[in-house]
């Protein structure tokens, strides 16, 4: 049937995208399931966003093992091009850079506001 043919075509497409010998190992290291013992959506969702922004990543998702446990399962899958640990590390670094930048801008903006307020108070004299 047409669907069967479509499915076969897809599977064969996958097969040819990886060399025969490397298939098993490639499969393993391009997928990673990481269990992180930390807080939940605070880290999980923001890290997931940073990893998804990486064009090499095919799939990224996180779940909580149980709402009472503070553990998340983070799964990353690259298309066989990179070991999956790499986008994970890159995502963490990028998240740190984002936070640093937000902090800098925030502090600068607070300082501006305080200066503006001070000069406004002086001008009323």
């Amino acid at each position, binding site marked *: 049937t047409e669907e069967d043919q479509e499915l076969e075509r897809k599977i064969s497409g996958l097969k040819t995208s990886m060399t025969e010998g490397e298939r098993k190992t490639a499969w393993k290291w391009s997928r990673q399931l990481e269990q992180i013992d930390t807080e939940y959506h605070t880290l999980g*969702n923001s890290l997931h966003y940073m990893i998804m*922004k990486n*064009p090499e990543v095919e799939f990224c998702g996180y779940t909580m093992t149980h709402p009472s446990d503070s553990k998340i399962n983070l799964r990353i899958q690259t298309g066989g091009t990179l070991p999956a640990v790499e986008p994970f590390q890159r995502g963490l670094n990028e998240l740190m850079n*984002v936070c640093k930048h*937000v*902090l800098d801008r925030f502090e600068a903006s607070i300082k501006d506001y305080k200066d503006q307020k001070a000069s406004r108070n002086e001008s009323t004299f």
Partner: protein
Amino acid sequence: MAASQAVEEMRGRVVLGEFGVRNVHTTDFPGNYSGYDDAWDQDRFEKNFRVDVVHMDENSLEFDMVGIDAAIANAFRRILLAEVPTMAVEKVLVYNNTSIVQDEILAHRLGLIPIHADPRLFEYRNQGDEDGTEIDTLRFRLQVRCTRNPHAAKDSSDPNELYVNHKVYTRHMTWIPLGNQADLFPEGTIRPVHDDILIAQLRPGQEIDLLMHCVKGIGKDHAKFSPVATASYRLLPDITLLEPVEGEAAEELSRCFSPGVIEVQEVQGKKVARVANPRLDTFSREIFRHEKLKKVVRLARVRDHYICEFSWSGAVAHTCQGGWIT
């Protein structure tokens, strides 16, 4: 042209329709839209990102964050609520409590009192450490005894006249410095934030005499340690008029939104409606109850513009907010 406008709307706006909300999720990931480079680029982010403080005073802060995604803005909000440390009363040693407020209720109330102390200058108490040292503990004493007022009028029924010290306020709490704390913290800097919080009420003969230990903690452990009263954000509203609205309809339109959002101006003798300040709108969706007007307006929110409003109990100074990132 129309197609790219639709794509821009999908990427950048959360649209509030009559029966549902569209485009809620972030979709600008690499590969979703052809012709767009959505891969993460720190420089592009830094160029587009902006923080504008709108209002700041002792009790609240309102600022705008533009160019950031929901996941990260929400992470900040969660951290502010649950993981920024403050000092709060943890242990209450009751020497005498003859008031009608039970020991545990009194201790619970004391725990919720915001304490004016910079938590960055203290360490967390080690687990299992009962007494605490000067580096991780603050001590307060509360000692109040209620007596009858001998100078009250004979037939008075006002408790303020009849009794002395019948209301126990936070100003009755005195700080007992431990170790070298008296040198580190000048007089008056370590105190409850507000001195007029009513802790308990007494009648003659009743006494409260207790010692409190304050430790450093985070909101995840107990809500008393949360430095913010509320930490919320909303997206910037974006109201577009799809056609010009004139005359009576303009007046009706301006009544459908919060005051100040729609302005009716006189142009060449006709009343014309104009969107003046969409930021003020609270999106009551009143517009959808008017058959003719609902087709004329598009209600949306700008997906990456967050108006954050935080108000706190005063326990932590504004500059401490810097600690939240790490």
